[in-house]
């Protein structure tokens, strides 16, 4: 019955993959970009680049004290202050605050107000940096990959979750159906039509199988309590909030005492935490500053553990005494946190992060080659019909069009988002959502054009547009910022993310350009072959694409 199993799994693999591949392309591409969301956000705020270029001489404790001074000036009555201290991914100090909500503010109004309640500080000057342009930066791409867009977040999460289940089934069925998974481990035969697409699909899939399996299962786990409420219902009944605080920890901030009291100096607290952990705290959160019930929480940077949980130490905000530390959690909860942590990869240092990024690109390539392979195979069955002047079926045409729209169209969308960041005037109203809308305008145009004319010429056109737009970003940088590659490559460690961004989009653009060239090259070769065959008088045969 083994062949029956392989056959049924092949069917499952094809359909589980095909039905959601275009959604998965979006999720994979946006998710892969999200590994570098901080760097992308930084790149998209060129006003901050000058400050980042100057090396900081401030010790972390002094940076924190600077931030507290600024926050005392700007938001002495806030309910909560958050300070992100500089690290290798963020060379500047981020300070934010939450004001007590005014009467009658809607959730959207409150969220919009929060966007303005922050300031970026330059540790080398002690002053606030120039106000960066309003942009969602990398956070847009991060949210896109699980909330989608233009819909309530919960719908997006369900759609992506269902897509992830399809993907999980596709991966497992793919492994079962792959007859020669070990014998063909290193097999890659280019220029052999359908077989080459299959080899490419196998190479991107099998040789990063641990990553693909991990990223899919862990992705589902991040929202698993939403997707599968049954066990919670069984044990907690209707007390879902109790379950959340049991599993995720209690985030109650306590009430203010409404008695004014000066805030203690946080430098000794930072030093105490630093001694206990062996590493400087990454983040400071102060609840009810300047109140008798003030609390200072210090968060440990992620790095050694897979878990996404951030151990913290809580100090009394008035006396400076250590009140509590996060206790180690049970094995089960630690396992969940590690699984979650594997997905968001906060622990990843630059090397590991780059490896994750490459595997994410491979995942996108895996989905793309799978979809293309299906189109090539189906087209084979129409070979005779097409040769005698007929047309391919509706399914093949639709898949071809969707493939162009997603595989060639999505890179155009990403590029458009970055171009919009540079070109939209800074004073544009709702600038952040305007930037995001350009992602979808570009994608929509590409997808629509693809539906109208799903031809090889359209492939070359869209791949070329994507190549020009992506590779053109570093060039655009020259005219729109003062931190283009000429500056960022030699500007010191603070500007390295900016340089890296320019180089990565340049490489990706070059790849797309090569693909467009290769398609044209193949077409010319095929035409030449057909010509010689016609000259020789033999009937032309339909070759595999």
């Amino acid at each position, binding site marked *: 019955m083994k062949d029956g199993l392989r056959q049924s799994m092949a069917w499952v693999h094809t359909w589980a993959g095909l039905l959601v591949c275009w959604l998965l392309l979006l999720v994979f591409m946006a998710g892969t970009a999200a590994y570098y969301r901080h760097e992308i956000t930084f790149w998209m705020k060129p006003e901050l680049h000058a400050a980042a270029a100057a090396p900081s001489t401030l010790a972390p404790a002094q940076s924190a004290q600077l931030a507290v001074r600024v926050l005392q000036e700007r938001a002495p009555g806030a309910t909560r202050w958050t300070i992100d201290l500089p690290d290798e991914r963020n060379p500047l100090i981020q300070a934010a605050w939450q004001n007590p909500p005014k009467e009658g503010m809607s959730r959207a109004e409150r969220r919009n107000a929060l966007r303005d309640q922050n300031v970026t500080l330059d540790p080398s000057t002690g002053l606030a940096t120039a106000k960066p342009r309003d942009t969602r930066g990398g956070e847009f791409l991060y949210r896109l990959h699980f909330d989608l867009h233009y819909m309530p977040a919960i719908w997006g999460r369900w759609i992506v979750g269902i897509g992830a289940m399809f993907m999980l089934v596709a991966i497992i069925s793919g492994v079962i159906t792959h007859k020669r998974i070990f014998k063909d481990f290193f097999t890659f035969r280019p220029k052999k039509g359908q077989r080459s697409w299959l080899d490419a699909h196998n190479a991107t899939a099998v040789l990063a199988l641990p990553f693909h399996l991990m990223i899919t299962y862990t992705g589902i786990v991040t929202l698993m309590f939403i997707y599968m409420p*049954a*066990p919670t219902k069984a044990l907690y009944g209707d007390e879902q909030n109790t379950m959340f605080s*049991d*599993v995720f920890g209690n985030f109650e901030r306590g009430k203010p005492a409404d008695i004014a009291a000066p805030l203690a100096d946080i430098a000794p607290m930072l030093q105490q935490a630093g001694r206990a952990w062996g590493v400087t705290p990454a983040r400071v959160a102060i609840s009810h500053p300047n109140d008798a019930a003030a609390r200072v929480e210090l968060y440990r940077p992620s790095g050694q553990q897979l878990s996404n949980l951030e151990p913290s130490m809580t100090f009394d905000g008035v006396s400076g005494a250590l009140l509590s530390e996060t206790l180690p959690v*049970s094995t089960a909860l630690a396992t969940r946190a590690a699984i979650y942590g594997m997905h968001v990869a906060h622990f990843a240092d630059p090397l590991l992060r780059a490896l994750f990024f490459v595997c994410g690109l491979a995942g996108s390539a895996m989905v793309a080659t799978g979809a293309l392979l299906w189109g090539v195979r189906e087209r084979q069955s129409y070979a005779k019909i097409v040769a005698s002047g007929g047309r391919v079926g509706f399914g093949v045409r639709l898949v071809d069009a969707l493939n162009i729209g997603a595989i060639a169209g999505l890179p155009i969308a990403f590029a458009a988002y970055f171009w919009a960041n540079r070109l939209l005037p800074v004073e544009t109203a709702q600038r952040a959502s305007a930037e995001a809308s350009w992602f979808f305008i570009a994608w929509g145009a590409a997808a629509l054009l693809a539906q109208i004319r799903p031809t090889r010429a359209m492939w070359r056109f869209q791949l070329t547009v994507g190549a020009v737009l992506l590779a053109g970003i570093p060039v655009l940088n020259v005219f729109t910022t003062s931190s283009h590659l000429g500056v960022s490559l030699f500007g010191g460690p603070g500007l390295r993310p900016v340089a890296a961004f320019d180089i990565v989009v340049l490489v990706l653009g070059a790849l797309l350009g090569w693909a467009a060239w290769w398609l044209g090259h193949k077409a010319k070769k095929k035409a030449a072959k057909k010509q010689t065959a016609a000259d020789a008088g033999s009937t032309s045969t339909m070759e595999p694409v």
Partner: protein
Amino acid sequence: MTTITWRYRGGVTARTVAAIGGGYLLAALGGALIALALPLARADAVTIATLLSFVIYPCVILWVFATRSALRACVGVAATCAVLGAILWCVGGMA
């Protein structure tokens, strides 16, 4: 290759419903039972059970499509759900 008859289409539809819908129900019932059965603190039990239910779900889906006939698939899933449901009801876990 199988010819695309109505019988074939019916089989595929039945398996798809059994896999996606029935599989989810099976994973949910199984998860609930595991949560109740584990002799751990509530938070631990609910976490492990929910993690495991997403292992059960794809296994059921694959089994539904691998098994010999669509009838077997539907009966298998339905029967398992019935048994799990009955146990749950006895244990008093059903809301």
